[in-house]
């Protein structure tokens, strides 16, 4: 069968001079699930945006179903039966699910919106493809899993035959990922073709038929998934052997750095998000929090870092109260923070890389000089960070918005690791970053801990929590359900029971271990 999509010698040079694709040849067979992998900044999203008409290739041909195409906007690609789910959600938060799905193509009756029809059609395609959504729910109030399904339904509603999914699993829990894979398989059974981008090689092995590896804008190769292994793919991506496992010397637990006491938080809608949470973190250990997303971990981290006020309770860093203080006060107490939502809390997108690197320290020497900033110091720090953390950019003066998703994360990691913290709070530190960078971040986390920093790790990736942590606590519905003082001796199944609230240690049992 002829390929349904064929890219021939695609070059893409962005206006800022970055060459994101260099002579890419890429072809997708009808009815397959084709995985696309590569390091952060390898040019995956760019290539997909070219297929979806959002970017125009500088040179090269796009052939869809045997016809050469020149898409000028997404509109053209949609009309040609292509749909794309973007790396970052593209939804209107105050609209309902149904309104988002029909956006731009609303059913009408005598010129006015036909809201009932929008709901009916949403229900109909939702059932047809087994993607469960609540048509009348406001998008702002639904969880990430459902948002993801809304995004896919948006494309299907427009009659997409070819579906591009750009890192759809980055924000999903393991359960939601499984549901998504089920849906993808069902789509393929119904004759759709799926292109799937991910950094998780286990997912590539699990769901795809073929896989293409990109490195620095070029195709390294395309092969049937059955002929690939995680190790071989990682090697193709990075160009060297990658350690998929973490090497970790035994922990040397030191003094108590942070103490959280009876923390309770009730949110604006009156829901109890955290309920009487107490635990300690010690120097030289990594404390991991395992839990299905949305069980209070996000709020816990935000409260601990001064981003959110608490309702009651206490938290001390080296004996100093940090609750309900400003983020700067918390940071001055020796806490650094890799936030979960890097686009809103981690970075100022329009500001330069260098500026983002000094936002937590511009007000003190050596970066402060008189009433102004010593830009020579800033440039030095920038250059050093870019080199040490492998941030892919020609220049530290460029806006962060021009970086690929994974490179944005590296900027945050660089800032937080170089601030010499007593306590490092890392929320989803490897979300959306490539294997090489993940290896690096994990190594650095372990190194910080071995050098005596207290580390709190919150991650939706259970494998990550288990392999990095020295001690693990599980959270369910805002409460701590279990403590495991020796992370190496607990199994995934066991943790799962506590994460889902099926098992529960008693207060007395936990008291000593927290």
């Amino acid at each position: 069968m002829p390929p349904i999509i064929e890219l021939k010698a695609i070059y893409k040079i962005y206006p800022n001079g970055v060459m994101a694709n260099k002579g890419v040849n890429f072809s997708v067979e009808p009815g397959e699930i084709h995985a696309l992998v590569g390091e952060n900044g390898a040019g995956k999203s760019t290539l997909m945006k070219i297929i979806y008409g959002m970017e125009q290739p500088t040179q090269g041909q796009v052939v869809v179903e045997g016809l050469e195409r020149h898409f000028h906007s997404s509109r053209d690609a949609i009309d040609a039966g292509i749909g794309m789910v973007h790396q970052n959600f593209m939804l209107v938060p105050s609209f309902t699910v149904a309104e988002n799905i029909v956006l731009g193509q609303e059913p009408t009756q005598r010129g006015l919106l036909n809201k009932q029809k929008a709901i009916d059609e949403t229900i109909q395609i939702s059932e047809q493809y087994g993607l469960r959504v609540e048509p009348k729910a406001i998008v702002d109030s639904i969880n990430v899993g459902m948002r993801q399904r809304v995004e896919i339904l948006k494309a299907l509603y427009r009659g997409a035959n070819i579906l591009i999914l750009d890192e759809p699993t980055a924000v999903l829990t393991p359960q939601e990922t499984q549901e998504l894979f089920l849906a993808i398989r069902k789509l393929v059974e119904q004759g759709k073709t799926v292109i799937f981008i991910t950094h998780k090689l286990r997912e590539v092995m699990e769901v795809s038929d073929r896989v293409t590896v990109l490195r620095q804008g070029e195709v390294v190769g395309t092969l049937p998934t059955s002929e690939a292994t995680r190790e071989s793919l990682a090697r193709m991506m990075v160009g060297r052997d990658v350690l998929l496992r973490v090497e970790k010397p035994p922990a040397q637990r030191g003094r108590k750095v942070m103490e959280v006491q009876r923390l309770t938080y009730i949110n604006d809608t009156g829901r109890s998000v955290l309920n009487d949470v107490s635990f300690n973190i010690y120097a030289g250990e990594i404390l991991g929090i395992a839990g299905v997303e949305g069980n209070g971990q996000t709020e816990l981290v935000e409260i601990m870092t001064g981003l959110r006020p608490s309702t009651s309770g206490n938290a001390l860093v080296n004996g100093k109260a940090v609750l309900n203080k400003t983020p700067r006060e918390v940071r001055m107490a020796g806490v650094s923070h890799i936030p979960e939502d890097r686009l809103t809390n981690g970075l100022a997108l329009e500001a330069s890389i260098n500026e983002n690197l000094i936002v937590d320290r511009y007000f003190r020497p050596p970066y402060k000089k008189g009433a102004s900033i010593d830009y020579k110091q800033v440039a030095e720090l920038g250059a050093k960070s870019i080199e040490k953390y492998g941030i892919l950019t020609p220049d530290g003066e460029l806006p962060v918005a021009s970086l690929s998703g994974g490179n944005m994360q590296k900027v945050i990691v660089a800032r937080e690791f170089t601030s010499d913290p007593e306590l490092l709070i890392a929320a989803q530190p490897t979300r959306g970053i490539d294997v090489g960078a993940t290896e690096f971040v994990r190594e650095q986390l372990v190194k910080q801990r071995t050098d005596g920093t207290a580390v709190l790790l919150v991650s939706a990736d259970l494998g990550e929590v288990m392999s990095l942590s020295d001690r693990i606590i599980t959270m369910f519905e805002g409460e701590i359900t279990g403590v495991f003082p020796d992370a190496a001796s607990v199994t995934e199944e066991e943790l799962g029971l506590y994460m889902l609230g099926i098992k529960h240690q008693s207060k007395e049992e936990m008291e000593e271990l927290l």
Partner: protein
Amino acid sequence: MSFDVVLRSIFSAAFLASVLRISTPLILPALGGLITDLSGAVNIALEGIMLTSAFTGVVVSAYSGSVFLGVLAGVASGVLISFVLGWFHLHLETNIILAGIAINILATGGTIFLLYVLTGDKGNSQSLASGRVPNINIPLIQDIPFLGRVISGQHIFVWLAFILTWLVSIYLYRTPWGTHLRAVGENPQAAETMGINVKRTRMIALLISGFLASFGGMTMSMAYLTIFQREMTAGRGFIALAAVYLGGRKPWGTLLAAILFGFADALSHQLGSLRIPSQLVQTIPYIVTILALVIYNLREQAVKRERRRKFQEQHMQSMASVE
């Protein structure tokens, strides 16, 4: 005049009628402000647009002798200015706030300059005979005892303000274009990827706002008065924006907020007859605007606190009952 006379007159039909009349030049630009705010490119040149339209309407109606032509020219000038603003913002990518400020300054100076050129007077257009838009009497309604005297006999723009509020609310919430406009304002990238043209949508919003604000301006010079005075809009274009937020960014809410400000304005006219320094009395509408916004925000926060407190109580109770 004593205080209780003032008080009694506030609750008279004539006073309420004047509230509607005075609110109109706030309601109309506020609707324009609302639409542009929802589209994500807020028009802060409403003031300048009103001023320009007020001036153009008077001049064209005076020279042509036709009220209709005057209104038409007034609207055209308002829409044209928004187009210029849109052009600068959307095509040349100027900051819309800066471009808006520039237009406001230009409108203030420009109208005075042209007034002087045409009449030799820098203060007002006394020597020009401006047209006046007609009043509307409605046979049955005008006979209803109190209400009839409030709403009948109002000039056409008062009616227009209410009708347009209704139309704007249909446009925003019941048509695809309005939906696209709101989507563009909230998440332009999402709209773009769904094939909606963001720039075009914002341009249309700006043009509509120019259309609406121009009626607000002409209300001042061709209905309320029949004369153009320098800087006669006196900040209404900005108070209109305050009404948008106080009204919760909803059409009818905006209308009510604008009427509240109109009420304050009308009140200051009434109090003008008391022996209170007039400078002080004239600040009332502006002080009410600030107070209203402050109270609105305090209330929002109180509602949130209350919800939290209630929950905690319930929570404590349920904990107590468990033990």
